[in-house]
């Protein structure tokens, strides 16, 4: 039996056409646009004003609350403006515009390639470094990492899972990171493991990345010879299945424990961190380097130049696309993230965020929705739902806005993975409709909590 989650799931073609493209640094653009809302939680508060000189790695915004994160300048230069600017989806958010001059880094940042393998013992200091480094979860949710690594009192972490599944089709940035920065990822994992009290650590990688699995196994064996701190870290090969990288699904797959509805991973003793986050933790703790860049897969069947790029945070998307030869003429949709859960971009002038993992170009043939027809009650949506829900039923209840019945049928548990819509032979926009119903249920739950 291969390791995988217990309910539902689908097997889309993995389309990892950019898998052989090594991560290469992209030239710094002339201007970067750094949003203060790059994470879940309160937006950060700007620390700079127009005219200020900044260096690479200098904090330009500080946390705006407990669940919030530092934001650093990704370039050196002069702050040109601080004000609202349209993001990927056209939504306005406060953005710091910096004109690039040279490439001068803050003192104290170790920019060498020297591997630092000693794991610091002082957990408090480590957490503070992670916080100061502006580290957030880079698997998609961008939840501030120092918050996730401070489990609430009374809860006990039993296992750290490093998520290297990259189960979304097309994406290869985590795969390349595992291959090219495997040592740093494993050291980052060991640091997080230390912070969590030395719990066992499982690095979960899907079977379609055999090179990464072999490489990480070698790295672990090598590091174990250096320090006992690397004991208890192991690789687990996962069956290829979407959405394996979903937090609840991955915990189920690795630990055979199901997080209860509305519960947090820590309630079953799990903490999950993404591969790219582990690398960011290494950089922040061992190198004093905050998140100023991240790797971005640029791909698509119609895109002539596949690439994995190391991009400075705040680089305009149009700059990335132009550097690779411009928009393919037959692309109708550009997606930030994977094809299953990524967001369609309406504004190519928008800039990358810390959590931007890919730019995916799709043609009309690949992405256009077909006309909806009658539900044939085949149950394929229910078979595919990894949460064990009944999308055909939630679809009907959402359309008549029966909030009570929606809650009884667990619409609030929907993780919006898209498996139902993907599998529906009648092309019913199940998830689109269920999202609306879920939003109503969430509203109702919230208003009940406020009354209490």
């Amino acid at each position, binding site marked *: 039996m291969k390791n995988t989650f217990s309910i539902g799931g689908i097997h889309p073609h993995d389309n990892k056409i950019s898998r052989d493209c090594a991560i290469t640094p992209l030239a710094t653009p002339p201007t970067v646009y750094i949003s203060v809302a790059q994470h879940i939680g309160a937006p950060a508060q700007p620390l700079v004003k127009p005219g200020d000189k900044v260096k690479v790695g200098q904090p330009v915004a500080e946390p705006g609350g407990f669940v919030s994160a530092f934001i650093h300048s990704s370039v050196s230069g002069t702050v040109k403006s601080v004000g609202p600017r349209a993001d990927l989806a056209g939504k306005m958010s406060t953005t710091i515009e910096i004109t690039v001059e040279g490439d001068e880094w803050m003192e104290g940042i170790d920019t060498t390639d020297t591997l630092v393998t000693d794991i610091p013992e002082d957990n408090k200091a480590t957490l503070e470094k992670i916080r100061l480094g502006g580290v957030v979860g880079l698997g998609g949710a961008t939840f501030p990492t120092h918050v996730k690594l401070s489990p609430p009192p009374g809860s006990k972490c039993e296992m750290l899972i490093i998520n290297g599944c990259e189960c979304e089709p097309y994406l290869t940035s985590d795969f390349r990171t595992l291959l090219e920065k495997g040592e740093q990822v494993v050291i980052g994992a060991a640091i997080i493991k230390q912070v969590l009290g030395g719990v066992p650590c499982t690095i979960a990688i899907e079977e379609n990345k055999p090179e990464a699995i072999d490489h990480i196994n070698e790295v672990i064996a090598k590091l174990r010879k250096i320090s006992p701190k690397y004991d208890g870290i192991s690789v687990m090969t996962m069956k290829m299945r979407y959405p394996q990288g979903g937090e609840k699904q991955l915990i189920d797959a690795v630990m055979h424990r199901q997080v*209860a509805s509305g519960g947090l991973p820590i309630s079953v003793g799990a903490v999950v961190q993404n591969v790219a986050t582990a690398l960011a933790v290494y950089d922040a703790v061992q190198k004093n380097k905050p998140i100023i860049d991240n790797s971005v897969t640029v791909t698509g069947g119609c895109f002539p130049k596949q690439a994995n790029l190391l991009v400075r945070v705040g680089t305009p998307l149009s700059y990335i696309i132009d550097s690779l030869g411009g928009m393919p003429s037959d692309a109708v949709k550009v997606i930030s993230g994977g094809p299953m859960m990524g967001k369609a971009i309406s504004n190519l002038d928008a800039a990358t965020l810390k959590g931007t993992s890919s730019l995916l170009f799709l043609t009309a043939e690949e992405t256009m929705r077909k006309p909806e027809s009658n539900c044939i009650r085949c149950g394929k949506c*229910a078979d595919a739902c990894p949460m064990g829900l009944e999308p055909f039923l939630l679809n009907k209840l959402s359309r008549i806005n029966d909030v009570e019945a929606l809650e009884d049928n667990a619409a609030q548990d929907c993780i919006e993975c898209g498996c139902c819509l993907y599998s529906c032979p009648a092309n019913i926009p199940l998830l689109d409709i269920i999202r609306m119903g879920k939003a109503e249920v969430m509203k109702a739950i919230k208003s009940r909590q406020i009354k209490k």
Partner: protein
Amino acid sequence: MSNLTVSPSPHIHSKDSTRSLMTDVVIALVPAVICSVVFLGLRELLVLAVSVASCLLLEWAVTRFMMKKPSTIGDMSAVVTGILLALNVPYTLPLWIVAIGAAVAIGVAKMTFGGLGQNVFNPAIAGRVFLLVSYPSQMTHWEAPQGLFGADAITGPTPLGAIKEGLLQGSSVKDIMTEHGYNYGQMLFANIGGSAGEICAIALLAGFVYLLVRRVIKPWITLSIFATVALTSLIFWGINPDRFTDPCFNLLTGGLILGACFMATDYVTSPMSTKGGIIFGVGIGFLTVMIRYFGSYPEGVSFAILIMNSVVPLLNRWFKQKKFGRA
């Protein structure tokens, strides 16, 4: 700059469509269709053609003139109904009766409820049962066929009909079987008296395997029907082998395989969950054997499926799959 399309995720879709699934069912029925034409002759081909054509024409007419909507015949479901209906009637049935059966299947059982996906009862079975109670003599009249390439099917009544009649005359099951020369190898490979869909078990099972391989259906409903029929008849047969037929006989005769593989597994009229499907199958299997043993009709699969069709909404309500992270 070109305009970008924006929509909510997911941005890709599986290749499955209603049309592709229904086409798979048609492909799965091809071996049985070929078999039936070979054994029953060109007359069977005519029955098939009339049945499919009537189903398509009626669905087109209803959508076009009564519902005033774009035609839905492109989804291929009417073709499936047409073939299934043709495989469920004697090859000698007058063609106008075949057309009436198609009209009831599509017009009454399917389109009245709103078309594909909305119907409560399996259209082909509803059509067949309507014909059975309306034209009983034509529907139970079996004539020695002139097969193609010299392949001859057995003359005479269906095995289930022969058993029922023999039992009424006071013979024992064993005597009747010997008298008609029934043996199971023959039943499995073709060539027993009956309607087209009853005559070649292997061809039907090949189609069923194709549907499983293509992941069009799941095996649970079919397997639970087979298991229940075998178990129930085993108990009765064990008690009195002179009065009750044995499990093998019950599995191989009377369209059980056709019903269990192709009609009970109809998406629209079967339960959504695996648990519900198993209960559904157990119900069909049990009712089939009860009707065969104690009912006045020799054959029970159609009635059993129709009865269980009507409890599907309840099964969907009672038997849901387990939700993630909930008791």
